[in-house]
């Protein structure tokens, strides 16, 4: 769970493989690829809910990386919500500082390009 949450957060906020226009990788080391660290993350509180499936006798379900599946949209929605009052309807993932700034500028009053939404 913990590792999955961290990876989802990282995907939402910073981790991204970037190429230049010629296809050269720009994030080929961990100096450039923003692999998230302990400093950027909080500790987690985990709670369990049990909902057995009626499909099989055991009630068991597959559960792979459930933390990742939930944490990425949660973080991404939080970022979008934080700038929603500025008219921003969408920010591409990961929501790096430059992307958030660009989204705010595009949504600024007088900039029609940003008003289309997606």
């Amino acid at each position, binding site marked *: 769970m913990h590792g999955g949450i961290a990876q989802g957060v990282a995907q939402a906020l910073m981790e991204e493989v970037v190429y230049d226009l010629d296809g050269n990788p*720009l994030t080929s080391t961990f100096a450039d690829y923003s692999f998230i*660290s302990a*400093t950027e993350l909080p500790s987690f509180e985990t709670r369990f809910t049990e909902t057995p499936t009626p499909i099989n006798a055991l009630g068991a379900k597959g559960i792979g990386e459930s933390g990742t599946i939930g944490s990425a949209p949660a973080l991404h929605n939080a970022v979008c919500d934080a700038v929603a009052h500025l008219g921003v309807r969408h920010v591409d993932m990961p929501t*790096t*500082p430059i992307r958030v*700034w*660009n989204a705010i500028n595009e949504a600024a009053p007088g900039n029609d390009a940003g008003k289309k939404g997606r």
Partner: protein
Amino acid sequence: MIPASFDYVRAGSVDEAIGLLSEHGEDAKLLAGGHSLLPLMKLRLAQPAMLIDIGRLRELSYVKEEKEYVAVGALTRHHDIAQSPVALASAPVLAHVAGQIGDPQVRHRGTIGGSISHGDPASDLPAVLLALGGTLVVQGPNGRREIDAKDFFLSFFEVALTPEEVLVEVRVPRSSGQWGFEKLTKRAQDWAIVGAVAVKTSDGVGVGLINMGPVPLRASAVEAAVTSGAKAIDAAQLAGEGTDPAADFNGSVAYRQHVAKVLVRRALEKVGV
């Protein structure tokens, strides 16, 4: 990744290092902590034929209080500056920033002299040196000379050291007054996307910028505005003047200039402007 082959020699004194530099010229590079040079050598972006290891010259590792300035030996590690009681008392901004470089392992090896003579505009310490109005003491075959920090950084990764000179001491005016240091990074260990430092000095307020051009910069327009009585929010609007930042996937030119204004304003507010 392994660097290209080189000859390694450990210098026993500054004079010996200068002698070796004079003998081998541009083929030789000084090695202090190695945390700027070795990564470049591993990526084969640097391939010196000879490394002159000065890392063991303990006589160049100190933080001393002089009458008008704090003297830091060029081989003092970031970790030692961050912990130094003298630095904490008389150059607190230097101590703080040294403690923010890279990560603990990097700070256990990297030195102030190595960081400054590398001339990387994205480094934190050069901007502090510029804001404080520091001086660099370099030693060559003809003895020592002093260079103003503002005259030290010539162009991208190029500094005012001649091939046979060694940076031996960094001097900053004593400044126990207020300071502000702001750095935007995605992760704690990253280089600054943009950084700003403001320090109250005897001449007014010094402002340095990190990663806003090919060399570490002093925000002269901001400083002048503050001297004329401008408030932080107004003076900071001039933070982009004279800058020439690179554009990369962490930020466009316009973005970096915007962030510089924000960070300079915050730094100025911390020094009471």
